[in-house]
């Protein structure tokens, strides 16, 4: 396993604020790595340092084993796709895609061939002679993608590439990018704040917060075993219960079931969670039914619990709960995640 890029002790500070704090990160070759986190977590700064638009305050960045820390962007041979697309408005789609090739002095005939090949890859060969303004947002984004991969970059960098697209197109483009990555074998670094996008697209997920890496791993690993409360929170875990020995348990809302004190649903777990709770709210939201409860955890702290159940699997006594009802919040052993802190 070789690394296409590597950050060692990289720090980036703007005056007092530290955007990236002593970052150590390996970008594996041929993989799609996602930098995931809320705004201000340093993910975009990290990507822009890799691209060469920002020089780190400290530390080194190597690309393909060569120190690139102070190399200007034009000497890095990386393909970057910007959130705003950043197409050249005065050039046609074909000239946009051929821009990097022209700078590399690829002969006109060969250039035309490569441009059409790359436009074909994103399904837009028929729009080669249009100006970017005549294209929809989704099409512009594809052109930006074709332009970035046309130069055969050593890494493809995507800065929130889907956040300006509408929901349906966004989901479509996820698999589109995955397909293109599979076809080209490119190493991809994707920056996103959308956990679903990261889970669906990544080979490796890097969850960041305040300039630090919180957890790195395959999506399935990070999702099922978040390293800490922040990662759990960010990935949609909602129920946090302190234990008597000082550690923290968490259960996803869709794994938390509401059992009534008398008869229980699905059988009360012998070893799992079976905590008395009081219903505070019970709402219908289309596909799901959401029950909110309060309970006291093992450390004696009052906590809010949320349970979401698909309506079609809902039993009658679950859908019948009302605010004020005394219930049992239940989860099986394997649904309970133990967090470090």
């Amino acid at each position, binding site marked *: 396993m070789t690394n296409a890029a590597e950050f060692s002790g990289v720090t980036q500070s703007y005056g007092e604020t530290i955007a990236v704090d002593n970052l150590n990160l390996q970008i594996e070759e041929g993989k799609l790595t996602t930098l995931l986190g809320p705004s201000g977590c340093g993910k975009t700064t990290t990507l822009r340092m890799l*691209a*060469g*638009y920002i020089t780190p305050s400290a530390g080194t960045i190597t690309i393909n084993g060569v120190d690139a820390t102070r190399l*200007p*962007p*034009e000497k*890095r*041979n*990386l*393909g*970057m796709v*910007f*959130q*705003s697309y*950043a*197409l*050249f*408005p*005065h050039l046609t789609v074909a000239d946009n895609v051929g*821009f*990097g090739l022209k*700078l*590399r002095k690829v002969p006109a005939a060969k250039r035309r061939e490569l441009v059409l090949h790359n436009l074909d890859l994103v399904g837009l060969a028929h729009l080669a002679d249009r100006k970017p303004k005549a294209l929809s947002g989704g099409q512009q984004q594809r052109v*930006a993608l074709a*332009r*970035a991969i046309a*130069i055969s970059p050593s890494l493809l960098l995507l800065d929130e590439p889907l956040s300006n697209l509408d929901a349906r197109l966004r989901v479509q483009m996820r698999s589109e990018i995955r397909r293109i990555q599979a076809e080209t074998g490119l190493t991809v670094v994707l920056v996103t704040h959308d956990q679903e996008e990261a889970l669906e697209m990544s080979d490796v997920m890097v969850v960041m917060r305040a300039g630090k890496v919180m957890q790195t791993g395959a999506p399935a690993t990070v999702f099922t075993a978040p390293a800490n409360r922040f990662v759990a929170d960010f990935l949609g875990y909602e129920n946090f219960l302190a234990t008597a020995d000082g550690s923290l348990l968490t259960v996803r809302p869709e794994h938390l079931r509401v059992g009534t004190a008398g008869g229980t649903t699905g059988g009360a777990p012998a070893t799992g969670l079976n905590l008395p709770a009081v219903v505070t709210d019970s709402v219908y939201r289309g596909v799901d039914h959401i029950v909110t409860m309060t309970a006291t955890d093992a450390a004696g702290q009052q906590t809010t619990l949320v349970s979401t159940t698909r309506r079609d699997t809902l039993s009658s006594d679950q859908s019948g709960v009302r605010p004020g009802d005394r219930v049992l919040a239940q989860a099986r052993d394997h649904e309970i995640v133990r967090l470090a802190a």
Partner: protein
Amino acid sequence: MRGRPVLGTLAVLGYIIMIVPILFVVSTAFTAGDALTFPPQGLSLRWFGEALAYQPFISALVSSLQLAVVSTALALLLGVPVTLAIQRGKIPGKSLVEGLFLSPLVVPELVVGLALYQQIMIGLHQTSFVALLVGHTVLLLPYAVRVTGASLALADPAVEEAARGLGASPLRTFFSVTLPLLRPGIFSAGLLSFVTSFNNVPLSLLLQSRQFRTLPVTMLDYVQQSYDPMIAAMSTLILAGTVVIAIVAEKTVGFAKIFGGINK
């Protein structure tokens, strides 16, 4: 205009206030009579012929055009790099630099003119063309900096970053991406600068000489001595020239783009 009576009325009033005086001048220019009166007496082109045959006007027109073209070019050559440095560069005290380049807008032109007269014409023994060139270039800098700055501020910096990422050096990026993006801004800055220089009176009044005198000053002199329709004819010719420039600007770039994409 429908459903907005106040706005509509104001717009119409604005047009009337701006256009009616011009109509008076234009119509008197076509008079066949000898006096600058309204309504014109008869219809003829004789005063246009007289204006074009009047040597002081023609040589002053040539001087004004020379001065306007060269000072506009100088202002753009200085102003565009300054704008780029202010907007994209990492220079300390950006607002101070910008303020410096915008200051000719507030400094009285007579003061600038007097300083140039003392230093350049008396001190350095330069011709009044050189002094006027310096004065007009300084006067036009705010337009060059401000107007191109506005169009640069509207441009997405990521576009230039994209060019760098694809392998373009900073210089290459400037010529193949930034400059084309700025073209409407530079064009409008040039247009504004040209008109400002061409119309300028205070500086020209102070720095003129017998060899070099601009058209507005010459026309001012003329009006003070003789009050005949030739001045209206000359004004109409200048107006026609302005209209031609406006039409060319609209056809080539479009006003919406020139003035910052208001209607985009």
